[in-house]
């Protein structure tokens, strides 16, 4: 069975990380600390796979003239420019690579991030409908907290900011804690299934 080797690697590395946490004594400290460094190196080295795939997808799009193929060169040119300037000028501040990043990539990221201001409004408009009593509770607590965030809220009634603080401190903490404890149980079970090879679909099947 060809999967024996990968599954045993998962078992060994998983156990090393667990033992590293509970046993400070030598072999496990060295193994655990190094393993954390090593797996980050392996995961980072994989980035070239993605870049090659990105190039393949867009070259294929141009070759077969699929829909919107005219935009594919833009991605390829953007990729090449950043790779070339990065390799030639390095990442030092003020160098072309850093200039391109600061003046183009950062603003585009900030703009996509700021789209959330629009989407929060449209999501609130559509989702907060008092269709049943539970949705009404969701709507009221959101409404109260929003009101408590802005000066108008405290002008209407000075207890509103306190209501906001209470809603965030008690029900919100309780809800978040229930989700976190439940999710942690899910993590423990999923980790055990992964480490002991009960769940192996991620390795794919026969080759």
């Amino acid at each position: 069975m060809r999967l024996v080797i990968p599954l045993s690697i998962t078992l060994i590395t998983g156990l090393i990380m667990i033992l590293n946490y509970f046993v400070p004594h030598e072999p496990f400290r060295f193994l655990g600390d190094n393993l954390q460094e090593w797996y980050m190196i392996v995961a980072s080295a994989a980035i070239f796979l993605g870049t090659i795939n990105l190039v393949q997808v867009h070259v294929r799009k141009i070759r077969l003239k699929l829909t919107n193929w005219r935009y594919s060169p833009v991605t390829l040119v953007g990729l090449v420019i950043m790779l070339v300037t990065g390799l030639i000028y390095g990442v030092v501040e003020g160098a072309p690579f850093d200039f391109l990043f600061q003046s183009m990539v950062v603003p585009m990221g900030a703009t996509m991030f700021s789209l959330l201001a629009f989407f929060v409004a449209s999501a609130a408009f559509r989702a907060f409908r008092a269709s049943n009593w539970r949705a009404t509770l969701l709507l009221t607590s959101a409404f109260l907290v929003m009101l408590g965030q802005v000066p108008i809220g405290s002008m209407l009634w000075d207890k509103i900011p306190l209501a906001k603080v209470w809603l965030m401190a008690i029900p919100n903490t309780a809800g978040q804690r229930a989700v976190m404890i439940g999710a942690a149980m899910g993590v423990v079970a999923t980790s055990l299934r992964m480490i002991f090879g009960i769940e192996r679909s991620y390795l794919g099947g026969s080759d």
Partner: protein
Amino acid sequence: MGRATLPLVILLMACAAAAQPPGTGGREDAAVRLSRVGQLVAEDVPNDAGGVIALGWVLDGEGALPDSLRVVRRTADGNETVLAMLSGGSTSFDDTTASDGTEYSYVIVSLGTGADPVFSGEVTASSSAQWLHSGRIGMLVILAILSFFIFWFIETSRRGRQFYIREIAGLASVEDAVGRATEMGKPVLYIPGIMDMDDIQTIASMVILGRVALKTAEYGSPLLVPTCRSVVMSVAQEVVRESYMQAGRPDTFRREDIQYLTDDQFGYAAGVDGIMVREKPAAIFLLGTFYAESLILAETGRGIGAIQIAGTAMPSQIPFFVAACDYTLIGEELYAASAYLSKEPKLLGSLKGQDAAKLFFIVLIVIGVLAATVGGFWAPMRGVADFLRSLVAVS
């Protein structure tokens, strides 16, 4: 004084100083009197791999602040080494060159220009490595109990015991979401989150992708999987290809539909939004680890009228999925999805184990709260509450 005699003199002075109880001042009548290092403590650093002894002390306020402090270490056979020269104000030092099991004695010498060196008292210690981290024993016990529950129920499920699993709305609608996409001749879009294969939610998402791929293989609708990480891309290609083979439709598997976009969080969001508005998928799955980009994707998906099934264990993003998606798997429901969709006995068994673990914590909390409440009036119960808290406390 010759070079050779210098250590001898220090040795004599060390004995002289050691003989004298600290703090009685003494015969140093030099112009400036340096403050002496007092309450010197040396102990093995707990819960470590050995080889480290921690020194701590306080400068008694009588003399002037020394310019520097010399840390001197002596072994049983008398050879002496100067470990470090510290600045006058420091009050602690870790000797990381100790070898386990050997007895060392330490002296700290206060030094100042134009003043006699002032010696601290002598303390001895030896370093050792611990096999079990003392602060984490409580956690180890609880984790062992819960893991036992999980393995126990997996075992009983293997011996044929059938387990019930409650209805999870989001997962019950996977079938008809893919069916709807096929009727409309539109693709299915699967978004596995933005983290890498070391993230447990992404691992769970890959397992669910395998089940969803089985459905799209049967129904024959295209399956698009844009990924934010290279390793996730290769795993997704592997998992989907395997599902198409199991469904007996290896010919319809299209590797180019499972593509890498970029590692950048918002570059990925921009790219996926573009795919949504152009490919117009009829069903969208958002399962895995999401951060702020969750609502950018979910709100765009709703804009094109697709059925959206989302799931994440990120507490901060669940409210946005609840607001924008048709179905949302909350926290643990994401991890239960693979068991729910496959109905595999060993996976249902592990779910039963998870429930037992939750029950364990509920009981622990209820007893703890009762003890703490009653503890207000009846002291021993507060001890019980403190004990339970210490059980779950981890250092």
